[in-house]
């Protein structure tokens, strides 16, 4: 089985490196097909592993030593267990589809080969992240996906906004990474190992305050990667990247790494419910917060991005409350329907010649029926309507919140569910139905290549049926993860399901109803709330004014005033003083014999005076 592990892990990087060889040559279809094939190989291997992994059958390899110094020793070790294999399958599946999709999507791009190289490199990093058997390996993947995300967001580097967004993403992630590193350091100095099994075996022996700190630091890392408030702004900006990237990285895989980390480190978080509660609260807050921003946004991709943010909040609620398998389950189903949504959006975007403003679309159903259907499925799934995947996973999370007695959280998530349904269908309605506003811009939409559409069908299928795997999923993952016990009555559970579904349905209904009739009047754009939401609560602005600008100013101040005018000048001052002393002292050397003689006599007289008046006491 180790063979499959290595294949699953290294197939993507082989593809990436080979594609990189062609990076500077013109488009070569081979790179696209080759990398897609290799990712598919990786997917197959993952599936074999999924089949293999069982109660007492996990694959664990130690490839080689990496760093060893002092007491510290980190190997390159990989483990395929119930959690990682789920992630592997999800990642490779979505990746395969995104790769194939990209062959169509990027067909006219001059940097076609480079794109596939980056994309496969990302998959490799993600595989390291999920397969590592220790925190450092996780961190390698963590940073690796960050790098690939930077490369891919800034893929169209000629665009100023793209490279800006790439840098923003990287830097924001680094803030989280620092927190994560601190957590890792703390683990090391308390346990002396980074291996999951060793750490989890010993974590119970630690001082609770230490565990709390470890939990907090690791969560800071998760916040960066999963774009939780207040490190969330980069995710929306990251939509500057090509759409397949948004689908793969910023919806299905990388951003969920934070959730994966919490799930993986569940044995730590289970000891510190306070931190878990905080995580859940923050998650719930983000769920509503992000959904509210999605309500008014006009940018097709940003809406989906906010939706992702909101769903990540849901996952964190589950993870924070200890329902790890549910978090993981939502992570998986979300990966399917959200990437589908994004890829569909990519089709729309192509059809619209790159225009993303949903107010300038409308009535595209006619022109691109398959895409419209796929996106609608995804939206229904997202909204959580039975029997689609979202229903199962999302309702479970609400149930957990209620079960936990955190009614406030439940309330937030409940509202969030309604909002989700509304904005999803606002998007569908504005894009696919209603008046064909795009015609005013002289755009002639066209559907994507058939193979692209075919590539998307597996996702659509999964978005529909994945929910029914709930029980087997539960059984499988709880072999490793701690189970979550529901204490609710069945009737209460049913009530909750009903309420949530009703909420979602009414959201959908309201959206359909409203936008059938031409939507809201333009007036609302002048409302304070609208402005607040459409400006993302002014948070990006705040960051710019309160952090970026002062930092830049301070940096310039440090350079121009402190470094040049104080530190350096004082060094020069010493030199100048000495030199100036020389200039003054040389005046003594007037060259006049009389004064020279006088100096001598003065010397003698002073010394004589000292001889008389100066008496050192031994």
């Amino acid at each position, binding site marked *: 089985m180790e063979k499959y592990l290595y294949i699953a892990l290294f197939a993507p990087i082989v593809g990436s490196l080979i594609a990189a060889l062609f990076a500077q040559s013109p488009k070569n279809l081979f790179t696209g097909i080759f990398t897609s094939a290799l990712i598919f190989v990786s997917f197959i291997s993952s599936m074999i592993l999924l089949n293999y992994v069982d109660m007492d059958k996990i694959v664990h390899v130690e490839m080689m030593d990496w760093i060893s110094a002092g007491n510290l020793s980190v190997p390159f070790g990989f483990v395929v267990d119930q959690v990682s294999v789920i992630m592997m399958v999800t990642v490779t599946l979505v990746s395969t589809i995104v790769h194939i999709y990209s062959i169509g999507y990027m067909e006219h791009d001059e940097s076609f080969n480079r794109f596939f190289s980056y994309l496969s490199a990302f998959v490799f990093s993600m595989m390291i992240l999920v397969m590592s058997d220790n925190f450092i390996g996780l961190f390698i993947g963590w940073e690796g996906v960050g790098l690939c995300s930077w490369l891919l967001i800034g893929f169209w580097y000629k665009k100023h906004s793209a490279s800006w967004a790439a840098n923003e993403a990287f830097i924001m992630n680094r803030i989280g990474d620092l927190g994560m590193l601190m957590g890792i350091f703390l683990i090391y100095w308390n346990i002396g190992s980074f291996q999951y099994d060793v750490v989890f075996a010993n974590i119970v022996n630690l001082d609770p305050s230490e565990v709390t700190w470890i939990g907090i630091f690791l969560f800071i890392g998760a916040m960066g990667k999963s774009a939780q408030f207040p490190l969330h702004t980069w995710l929306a900006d990251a939509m500057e990247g090509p759409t397949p990237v948004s689908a793969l990285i910023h919806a299905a895989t990388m951003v969920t790494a934070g959730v994966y980390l919490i799930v993986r480190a569940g044995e730590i978080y289970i000891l510190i419910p306070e931190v878990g509660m905080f995580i859940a609260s923050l998650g719930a807050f983000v769920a509503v917060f992000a959904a509210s921003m999605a309500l008014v946004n006009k940018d097709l991709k940003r809406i989906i991005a906010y939706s992702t943010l909101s769903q990540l909040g849901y996952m964190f609620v589950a993870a924070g409350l200890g329902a790890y398998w549910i978090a993981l389950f939502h992570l998986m189903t979300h990966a399917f329907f959200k990437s589908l949504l994004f890829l569909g959006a990519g089709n729309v975007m192509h059809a619209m010649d790159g225009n993303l403003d949903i107010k300038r679309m409308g009535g595209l159903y006619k022109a691109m029926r398959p895409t419209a259907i796929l996106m609608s499925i995804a939206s229904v799934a997202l909204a959580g309507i039975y029997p689609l995947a979202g229903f199962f996973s999302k309702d479970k999370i609400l149930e957990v919140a209620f079960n936990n007695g955190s009614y406030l959280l439940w309330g937030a998530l409940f509202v969030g569910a309604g909002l989700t349904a509304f904005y999803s269908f606002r998007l569908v309605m504005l894009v696919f139905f209603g008046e064909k506003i795009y015609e005013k811009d002289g755009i002639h939409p066209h559907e994507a290549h058939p193979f692209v559409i075919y590539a998307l069908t597996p996702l659509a299928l999964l978005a529909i049926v994945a929910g029914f795997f709930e029980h087997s999923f539960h059984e499988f993952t709880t072999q490793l993860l701690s189970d979550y016990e529901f204490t609710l009555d069945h009737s209460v559970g049913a009530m909750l399901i009903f309420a949530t579904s009703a909420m979602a349905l009414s959201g959908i209904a309201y959206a359909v109803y409203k936008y059938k009739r031409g939507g809201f009047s333009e007036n609302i754009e002048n409302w304070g709330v609208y402005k607040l939401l459409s400006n993302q609560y002014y948070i990006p602005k705040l960051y710019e004014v309160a952090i970026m600008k002062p930092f830049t100013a301070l940096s310039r101040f440090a350079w121009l005033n402190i470094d040049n005018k104080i530190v350096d000048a004082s060094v020069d001052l010493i030199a100048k003083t000495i030199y100036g002393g020389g200039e003054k002292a040389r005046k*003594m050397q007037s060259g006049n014999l009389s004064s020279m003689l006088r100096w001598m006599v003065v010397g003698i007289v002073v010394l004589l005076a000292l001889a008389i008046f100066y008496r050192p006491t031994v």
Partner: protein
Amino acid sequence: MLEPINIDLAALNITSLLPMAITIFGALSIICIDLMTKNLSKSLYTVLTILFILLSLGAVLGYHGDSRGFFDVVLVDGIALMTQIIILVTSALFVPLALGGRRFQEFAMAEFYALFLFMIAGFQFMVSSDNLILIFIGLETASLSLYTMIAMHNRAKAHEAAIKYFTMGALAAGFFVMSSLIFYALTGSIEIHQIAEVLQTKNFEPLVAVLAGTVFMLGALGFKLSMVPFHTWTPDVYEGSSSALAGYMSVVPKIAGFVVAMRLFEMLIGSGVVWLENILYICVVLTMTFGNIVALVQEDVKRMLAFSSIAHAGFVMSAVLIGTTEANSGLFLYWVLFMFANLGAFTMLWVTRHRKNLWDERYQHPFSKFSGMIKIMPVNAVIMGVFMFALAGMPPFSVFWGKLYLMSAAVNNGFIVLAIIMALNSAMAVYYYMKLIVYMFLKEPVSNDESIYTSNTSTTLKVIIGIAVLVTSISVVMVEPLLKMITNYVTLSGF
């Protein structure tokens, strides 16, 4: 009142006078040769001078007698022997500089060589006696010869330099005799060791008078050693005299002065005259620092070297202040190593001597003259660079080892602050030596004509420079034997 004097010839220990006798005889014979035949080549005189010097050196090296001789006025102890060796070797290395490529009037005259030998004899007397009269005579003989030799360079500046030097020297002579008078009045003796004994029995009372005598001696020796504020002659005299002589002046008269200072001051400090220790401390620091900071702003290499030699003197004077065997050995080690670097540096200047002041109206060797030398004459530039780094105390060149040893002596004897001041001063000193290097290596040349830089060159000068470079560069292996010899001599004479 007068006793009949019975002189036992053996007790006179005439051989103790042999080295001086040889140099004096040499001087007289050169004058005689000149009287008999005219128009002899300067090379003859030069070689003769060297021969006499070597003979004298042989006499010094072969000396195995009592340390006292000639009515006990001559004191040939270890220090005297060693200093004579240093003086003679240095002289032998500097005399050949007369054989430059260009003609200079003074070197054509036999008197120059005679005076040179007289001067050597004067210094030899000065260092090998503890009788104040003999020291005075030696000092004056040497100084008067030196004044004359400076003036023989026959440039307006040389005359000015000679007059300045002379006048100040006369004043310093006054100080010297005044000091002698005071000590004589206090103790009734003019021999340093007797003075010491009497002062000790009197417990240095009256202290004011003792200190007054010390002050005048400080003035007199301070003049010779160019201690601040008796240093003012140094830059002008160096500038005015020929480079060859200036180089010589920065080495030999000073070592003679150091020996006298050691004999006198260490006696006083060793007996617990704290006043002198403190004053000397101040003088040392002042001299070092002053020499260095003024050297920073000089525009002429020779003047810069003059000020730097003030600083070096101050540095070495600290050995007298510290006063241990180690320090005194350090003094000689430093001076020997310094001599070679200095010999090289001044010879290099001597090589570039040109008839006219091509680069600057005022100066013979302005820094700008050496601009971009690396491009015109890379070897010369590198060699000059070696000397500059050596003088700056850059390892592994010669002066560094002296510096190391002296600073170590300071540290070992509790003069940590002094050691730090010395260290900081050597950091300051690096700047002006480096200034020349910056000009030579980092700037663009003024003129590509090599000949104007080497108008005074000759094989002899090249050989001298070669010796200097060699010694300066590989001094690390010389330190061990040198130090052994020096320490041996120094311990022998009880310092």
